[in-house]
């Protein structure tokens, strides 16, 4: 009930260069995952399932596919006149050619939207971590503790990276006592999930002050200072369920493969908190006479007549007779012709592998085939 009083803001301007071809024309938030979703679906659905009715998505470069995907917010029941989904692309005016210089700048540019929103709290998130949270518990913890800001973190060692990520030191009372950003060797075991909960008036004050001082990054220039200089109570909230960080081709690949695991799959796709996404109205997947499929997820619209093992097939994929697929992620509408062999590959949308083709990547570094490529 209380979550009606919280607005969600999702910042989608993360560094995307580690994802190579996959993010050349799309934001990380728009990256297709798990057969029929985009990265951002998990976060928006989590917010909606928690009762949040107002979600702003701050767009940066490459936002066409993201905008197209989110549409009017209808799939999330966020299409009302009252609250709903707000798409916030960069301003292009006579003076300004768009592109925010950082998360703080982005928030400052959307000050009007934040001010006009009638909720008292803001749940501020980045979009590169995939998890299916119910934020009610975090809100309860925030209100009980009387903290100024509550930051979600995970102890999952898989989220830790060299030279990348934010790590918290947290004391026995749950207070964040130190923050390290992008250290070469992360010293603290708590990785920030880049989810922050605070009062809207506090956020507006912080953003206004930060912008007035010429700062750009809300984590580094505002929150880190807050924690260091004390005065504010910044608490951690531990997220204990599965979560994945989409910051490299390997981590993207691992996520898709891990979803094949029953425990991970059931944790992410829980009936009580469905993940909504744009609907395509495809017919069910069809298995032909020669299909032999094992340990694989298959989305609607696929037609499979070959052998597929330990793979993820997105909507509308065609696998012809005699094809052999292992450890692959094959995105929407890709076509695998007869006799093809693929192992450890990621095929972006609408890729075509012609008859007899063979692509075998190392399992540590999958081969990426770009969108619309024919090989």
């Amino acid at each position, binding site marked *: 009930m209380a979550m009606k009083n919280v607005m969600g803001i999702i910042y989608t301007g993360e560094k995307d260069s580690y994802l190579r071809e996959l993010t050349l024309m799309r934001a990380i938030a728009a990256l297709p995952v*798990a*057969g*029929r979703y985009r990265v951002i679906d998990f976060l928006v659905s989590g917010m909606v399932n928690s009762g949040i009715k107002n979600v702003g998505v701050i767009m940066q470069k490459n936002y066409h596919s993201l905008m197209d995907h989110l549409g009017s917010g*209808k799939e999330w029941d966020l299409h009302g006149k009252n609250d709903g989904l707000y798409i916030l692309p960069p301003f292009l005016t006579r003076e300004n050619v768009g592109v925010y210089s950082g998360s703080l700048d982005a928030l400052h540019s959307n000050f009007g939207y934040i001010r006009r929103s009638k909720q008292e709290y803001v749940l501020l998130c980045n979009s590169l971590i995939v998890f299916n949270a119910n934020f009610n518990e975090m809100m309860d913890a925030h209100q009980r503790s009387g903290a100024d800001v509550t930051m979600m973190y995970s102890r999952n060692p898989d989220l830790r990276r060299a030279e990348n990520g934010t790590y918290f030191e947290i004391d026995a009372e749950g207070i964040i006592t130190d923050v390290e950003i992008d250290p070469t060797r992360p010293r603290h075991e708590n990785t920030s999930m880049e989810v922050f909960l605070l009062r809207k008036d506090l956020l507006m004050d912080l953003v206004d002050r930060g912008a007035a001082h010429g700062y750009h990054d809300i984590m580094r220039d505002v929150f880190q200072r807050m924690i260091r200089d004390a005065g504010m109570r910044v608490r951690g909230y531990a997220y204990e369920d599965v979560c994945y960080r989409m910051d490299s081709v390997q981590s993207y690949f691992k996520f898709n493969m891990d979803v*094949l695991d029953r425990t991970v*799959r059931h944790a*992410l*796709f829980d009936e009580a908190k*469905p*993940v*909504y*996404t744009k*609907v395509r*109205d495809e*017919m*069910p*997947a*069809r*298995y*032909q*006479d*020669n*299909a*032999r*499929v*094992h*340990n*694989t*997820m*298959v*989305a*609607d*619209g696929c037609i499979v007549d070959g052998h597929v093992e330990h793979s*993820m*097939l*997105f909507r509308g994929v065609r696998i012809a007779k005699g094809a052999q697929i292992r450890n692959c992620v094959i995105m929407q509408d890709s076509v695998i012709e007869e006799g093809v062999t693929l192992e450890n590959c990621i095929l972006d949308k609408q890729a075509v592998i012609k008859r007899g083709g063979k692509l075998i990547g190392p399992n540590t570094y999958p081969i990426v085939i770009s969108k619309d490529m024919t090989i």
Partner: protein
Amino acid sequence: MLKKKQCIAMLLAGGQGSRLGILTVNMAKPAIPYGGKYRIIDFPLSNCTNSAIDVVGVLTQYQPLELNAYIGSGSPWDLDLAHGGVYVLPPYVKGKQGEWYSGTANAIYQNVAFIEQFSPEYVLILSGDHIYKMDYNAMLAYHIEKGADATIAVREVPWEEASRFGIMNTNADNIVEEFDEKPKQPKNNKASMGVYIFSWDKLRAYLCEDAGDPGSSNDFGKNIIPNMLRDQQKLYAYDFEGYWKDVGTIESLWEANMDLLNMPMPIDLYDKRWRIYGRNPGVAPHYIAEGAIAKSCLITEGCEVYGRVEHSVLFAGVQVMEGASVIDSVIMPNAVIQSGARVRRAIVAEGAIIGAGAKVGEDTGNIAVVGQNVKLAAGAVVAAGEQRVQ
């Protein structure tokens, strides 16, 4: 204040469909699941959307709950419009008393005021009982071109089956000269599909006449069409050639599902220019486990297959556990086939649970049916042709 429309559709969805046995105990026939992710009503509704007909009145009176919830705001079919859309039309009380729909024509007659709101020139009458893809817009163009008072969609049926249908005897110009309801000795093999376009002024007049006739069955086939022929109105037959299946019985519903497993499919549901829309369950892609077998089958989102599925259609959220086998069967949403169970030539309705080692249906014989939410005990047996309600 409603916007004028050239043609609106009225969809007769009130039938109880009693020949579908236990499947329609709690649900109107048009709400019956079909083809892995559709309901029967998705076909006429999607045909309307794809034909640019954007006002659809759905006439219901029998168990409309499931249908009502399924139709909702109409958004899956792009029918959630400010100026038009889908309207559910049950019987209602006028003045001091209410009256149930006494027949297909009476259902339309009771909704004359609804139709008049849109001042249409033409009204398309549909039924919610058939699986087919049809461009009603092309039929409307034909109706207008011919200057017809009524146009009846017909399809050629095998001569030996013609006596089971309403047969249109037409002349060389496709003008209907006679209508034979289930003729013993058919003179023609053009069977009515239950899809009519009427010029609204004409239809209204005949509905009013029919309403005043106490001996009438208030039915389109039995009364309205014969009365129009009697008065030598211009009735045209419109030839339709694609796939069309009446799914009015357990056997025909099962067959219509099995038809989708043929290659090429007799009705192309991959066609992006004529999509069949439906309400999406919103669950993850399905999962086929290590050691599972899935061949010659349709499987949709949310299913988990650990056992064997062959020549079958699985709806959303179905689970087939280790050692279970499903062959020649239709498994409706969220049913669970427990380990070692064996399902053959069967329809398992929504939410049913087939206990471990149970046997449903047989390799030959009639289709076995397990009803909605039935929990079949471990080791239970449902014989061919049997319908199990608990």
